[in-house]
């Protein structure tokens, strides 16, 4: 009789029936549609993004935590659990959902005009339209205030120039939320695919997040009407709020990748015989498994705690940083440790472990690097910012 790592902590007892049902639907979709294919997608570095978006949209996972405009309006924990299940399949597939729901859709929902919301959100919720979020630039990741992309007034129009880098969903997006410097500070713009002067280029030769589209956005004199601007976002606080949303999903998501590694490894170690007994019967293996289960359980409970705070409206940015820093770091550590138990098998795509480990290398530095989140905590603890 084996106890599931999450059951060690009685995790499921802390969820509502509705949250468990939602998790079950996402898990079922992942088991049937994603898991049989994801290793191949990863190997080929190609995903059927449109088809996936429609499937995700059909159950309602895209923008599920937003209200109205075709979105389900669910709580933060339900959203977190969906991220967890998606990332247990693959971080890249979870990234598609995060960027769509928590970056692109959230930006439109929070900062868009009524027309913009009605034009884009229902289609994005259904997965008919894919969105991306252009903040990071080639030379400005952790320091978005330095961005070089500009939006200049020309009569009533705006003209955008610049380059955005490492943009998830970039080349498959129908609509890009692009942040640019104006005389009035940083403002957000909706750039539909096909707009003259707007183009994308995929970033190849990735060894991580291969089941995810990563692109460069090129804005070369892109002319947009006045109503393309997101009216309610002024300054960097707009995009930073979006990033807090996406980071919250990662706090749960990373534990999904870790859980998938640990489940795989426990099963493997129970079957794999070494010196005529299962690998899992050795004390060194058990110590690894116990240590990993501890970190997994702590990470799950932390994620859930942050989720409940978010639902209560008491979650603050430093707490999201604490969750993201801890859970991604520990998930990566778990993935690497699982790899050692799988031995040589652990480096093949026959098992998900090396894929998760490779993916988590990206998750560690995107949506705020570990270093930045560490400094956020440092600032909170000392009152002294040490970023620069």
């Amino acid at each position, binding site marked *: 009789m084996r106890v599931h790592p999450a059951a060690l902590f009685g995790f499921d007892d802390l969820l509502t*029936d*509705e949250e468990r*049902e*939602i998790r079950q*639907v996402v898990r*079922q*979709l992942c088991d049937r549609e994603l898991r049989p294919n994801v290793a191949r997608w990863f190997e080929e570095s190609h995903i059927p993004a449109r088809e996936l978006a429609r499937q995700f949209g*059909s*159950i*309602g*996972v895209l923008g*599920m935590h937003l209200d109205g405009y075709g979105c*389900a309006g*669910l709580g933060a924990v*339900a959203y977190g659990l969906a991220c967890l299940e998606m990332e247990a399949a693959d971080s890249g597939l979870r990234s598609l959902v995060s960027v769509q729901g928590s970056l692109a859709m959230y930006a439109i929902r929070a900062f868009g005009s009524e027309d913009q919301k009605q034009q884009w959100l229902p289609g994005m919720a259904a997965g008919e339209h894919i969105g991306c979020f252009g903040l990071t630039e080639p030379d400005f990741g952790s320091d978005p205030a330095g961005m070089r992309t500009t939006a200049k007034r020309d009569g009533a129009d705006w003209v955008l120039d610049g380059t955005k880098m490492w943009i998830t969903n970039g080349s498959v997006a129908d609509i890009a939320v692009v942040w640019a410097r104006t005389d009035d500070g940083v403002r957000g713009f909706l750039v539909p695919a096909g707009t003259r002067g707007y183009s994308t280029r995929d970033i190849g030769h990735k060894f991580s997040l291969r089941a995810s589209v990563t692109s460069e956005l090129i804005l070369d004199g892109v002319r947009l009407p006045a109503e393309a601007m997101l009216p309610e976002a002024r300054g960097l606080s707009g995009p930073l709020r979006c990033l807090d949303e996406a980071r919250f999903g990662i706090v749960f998501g990373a534990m999904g990748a870790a859980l998938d590694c640990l489940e795989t490894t426990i099963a493997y170690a129970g079957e794999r015989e070494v010196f005529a007994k299962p690998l899992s019967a050795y004390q060194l293996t058990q110590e690894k498994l116990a240590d990993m289960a501890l970190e997994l359980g702590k990470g799950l409970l932390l994620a859930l705690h942050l989720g409940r705070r978010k639902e209560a409206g008491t979650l603050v940015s430093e707490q999201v940083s604490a969750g993201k820093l801890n859970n991604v770091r520990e998930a990566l550590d778990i993935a690497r440790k699982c790899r050692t138990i799988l031995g040589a098998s652990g480096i093949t795509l026959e098992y998900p472990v090396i894929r998760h480990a490779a993916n988590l290398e990206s998750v560690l530095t995107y949506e705020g690097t570990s270093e930045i989140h560490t400094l956020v905590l440092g600032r909170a603890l000392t009152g002294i910012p040490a970023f620069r």
Partner: protein
Amino acid sequence: MNIVVLVKQVPDSGAERNLRTDDNTVDRGSASNVINEMDEYAIEEALRIQEAHGGEVTILTMGPSGAAESIRKALSMGPDKAVHVVDDALHGSCALATSKVLAAALGTLNADLVLCGAESTDGRVQVLPHMLAERLGVAALTGARKLTIDGSALTIERQTDEGYEVVTAQTPAVVSVWDTINEPRYPSFKGIMAAKKKPVQALSLGDLGVAPSEVGLDGASSAVVEHSKRPPRSGGQKVTDEGEGGVKLVEFLATEKFV
């Protein structure tokens, strides 16, 4: 069209299942209980008919109070309402008694079409749709891999080992379906939330006018009297190829009725 879909809660066939040691009935307490897989196809078919022809879809379940979870899951796929026949006296009912209770419940529902899975993964007797149709005095179109509706005319392709048969009937009728008929949808998140507000009517044996003595273990026409665990897998049989390995393999497959 007024459609009733029969939904049974069963122990997950993908997990370990047991019979109870005290009365040899299915052990639901220790099992992970789910909607009988084939019933999901019946729900999907009902929803597609509703989308094309309008009408109402009602879930009908007979089972213990824990079956409410499966009813809610069924409703989250899209049906309008549910009826749950729940009564402690039903525990251990045989197929004959089940068909009696369900027929009584259907008597209150005025269905044009009763859809159900062709079998349940726990009992696997496949007789219920026939019994039910007989009790209701309506046609039984069983084992469908395809169902088409033209007014009150129903046509199915009945799946057989050799191919299929085309069978027709008029409504009202009972139609049982195999998993070849469609691909069930996933419940949507909105569906999950909406399901909580959909009406679920609970009916007891008293409500249906069925005497407790006619159902349950005591009223069962058949019952499991003894059971034992399947013996552990043996080492298998090794065929050494001494020039006639192929023949031996074919003989083995033929004996075991694989070919």
